[in-house]
């Protein structure tokens, strides 16, 4: 490296960028980590759960220093109609043992911490910098432009998030399509910590994560709820294409969800302290651009559209961290910048990111079944009501009652067809 050229410039101090910068700096490489927020995390919003293994891959024990919220030991699935809800609650204390499987997180705290860890390893961290463009010479990316300034590096790592303007400027991929992302809206609601533990049936430091369907007016998408320390993250992710085709504002649908009696009881007495929105990659394996690098340039994290959504498991930050680590390992191993792209691909394979993406590669197709978002949750609640209701009148025979409920919500033909479609996509 010449005096004024970094080994790497990492654009974006989210989990992907900081994992990359941390790993490079730890190996003694010169790294500049830029973020457009006044502090790392100031521009970031996420639902709020991080699967811990990813931090363990970066460095065993690293997670113990992180400002994590609650370790998730309750996994909940809530099927809603407009008056009630059926909730499946899976309690597994094992998820909280040894290295806990996952934690709820608040991005402002998490991202600032991680960037600070990279800085402590020797990375130069500069928040409050918006990268306007790339410097290209002889077909190679050799640096970035910000305002009047130019900064040079052997490799530019684009960790600039789901909108990745840099990846587009590098010509790696076109802009993301509305059908390939979800738009998430979220309120952070402060609530006393003891109250959260009591309402969700968890001990101090333990928490619940909930996904909800039936709260989106039939739009492909779902609600989420994460318990933090002293706050709850509540939100909905919508398919923006479908949201744009109907007439109710997504904010209003979100407020309905918040005020739904089954949700309201959990957050009552709390204080809304922030409202955020963000896009999330939704296409899984098939959404990953064919080209993730060119000479002197790689994309990581959301910028590379890494993401997994099975309906129950929603992953982004862990994949971001793994991809940032993969890019760092590639840069460390490369004899020349031109080798980074191939080595990055190899690392994504070796670290099993690709295998994870492939394992769920067709799940996205399930969410094309519109009935999942209204009719089936309604059916579940109707069935529950039938099973639990006692009013002294002559009850319908059990089987007939249930079949009538199925027929009222969907036809048998559709039920079979949807079952077959789900079977094919998993």
């Amino acid at each position, binding site marked *: 490296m010449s005096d004024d050229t970094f080994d790497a410039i990492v654009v974006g101090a989210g989990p992907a960028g900081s994992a990359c910068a941390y790993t490079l700096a730890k190996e003694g490489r010169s790294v500049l980590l830029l973020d457009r927020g006044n502090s790392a995390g100031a521009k*970031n919003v996420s639902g709020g759960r991080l699967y811990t293994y990813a931090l363990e891959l970066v460095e065993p024990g690293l997670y113990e220093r992180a400002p994590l919220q609650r370790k998730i030991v309750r996994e909940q699935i809530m099927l809603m109609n407009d008056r009630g809800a059926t909730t499946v609650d899976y309690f597994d204390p094992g998820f909280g043992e040894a290295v806990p499987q996952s934690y709820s997180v608040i991005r402002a705290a998490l991202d600032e911490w991680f960037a600070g860890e990279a800085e402590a390893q020797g990375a130069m961290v500069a928040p409050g910098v918006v990268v306007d463009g790339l410097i290209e010479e002889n077909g190679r990316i050799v640096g970035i432009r*910000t305002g009047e300034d130019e900064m040079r590096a052997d490799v530019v790592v684009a960790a600039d998030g789901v909108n990745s303007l840099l990846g587009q400027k590098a010509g790696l991929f076109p802009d993301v399509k509305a059908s390939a992302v979800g738009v998430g809206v979220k309120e952070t609601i402060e609530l006393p910590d003891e109250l959260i533990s009591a309402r969700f049936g968890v001990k101090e430091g333990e928490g619940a994560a909930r996904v909800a369907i039936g709260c989106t007016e039939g739009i492909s998408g779902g609600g989420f709820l994460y318990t933090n320390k002293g706050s709850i993250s509540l939100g909905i992710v919508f398919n*923006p294409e479908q949201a*744009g085709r109907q007439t109710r*504002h997504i*904010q209003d649908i979100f407020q309905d969800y918040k005020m739904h009696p089954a949700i309201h009881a959990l957050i009552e007495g709390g204080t*809304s302290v*922030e409202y955020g929105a963000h*896009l999330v990659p939704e296409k899984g394996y098939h959404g990953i651009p064919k080209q993730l690098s060119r000479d002197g340039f790689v994309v990581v994290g959301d910028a590379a559209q890494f993401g997994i959504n099975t309906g129950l498991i929603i992953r982004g930050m862990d994949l971001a961290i793994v991809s940032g680590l993969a890019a760092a390992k590639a840069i460390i191993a490369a004899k020349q910048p031109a080798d980074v792209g191939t080595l990055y691909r190899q690392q994504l394979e070796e670290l099993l990111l690709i295998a994870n993406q492939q394992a769920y590669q067709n799940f996205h197709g399930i969410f094309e079944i519109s009935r999942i978002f209204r009719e089936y949750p309604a059916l579940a609640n109707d069935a529950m009501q039938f099973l639990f209701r006692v009013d002294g009148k002559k009850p319908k025979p059990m089987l007939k009652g249930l079949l009538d409920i199925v027929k009222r919500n969907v036809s048998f033909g559709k039920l079979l067809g949807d079952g077959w479609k789900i079977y094919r996509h998993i």
Partner: protein
Amino acid sequence: MTIKRLSPEELLGLDRFEVDESNPHIIVDKAICATCKARPCLVACPARCYRLNKEGEVNFEYAGCLECGTCRVVCSDGGVTSWNYPRASFGVSFRCS
């Protein structure tokens, strides 16, 4: 404290913004929006930056933008002619999301 349905203004009022008065980071061509029938921005922008005015035209106000990118990806007729992040130190700053 109590949890209630929050209006669009109340929701954005929770957030911290530093508005770059002289520099809109998103440029919208109203002439294109005037002929757009779909107008997905009106319901999909989480900040409600796109609203109809009395004349039925799409009005865009970037001050409460949450910088998510939704308008850019849903825009079907190309009314969002330029989409960038705000200049350094401007825009929204999240503290606990």
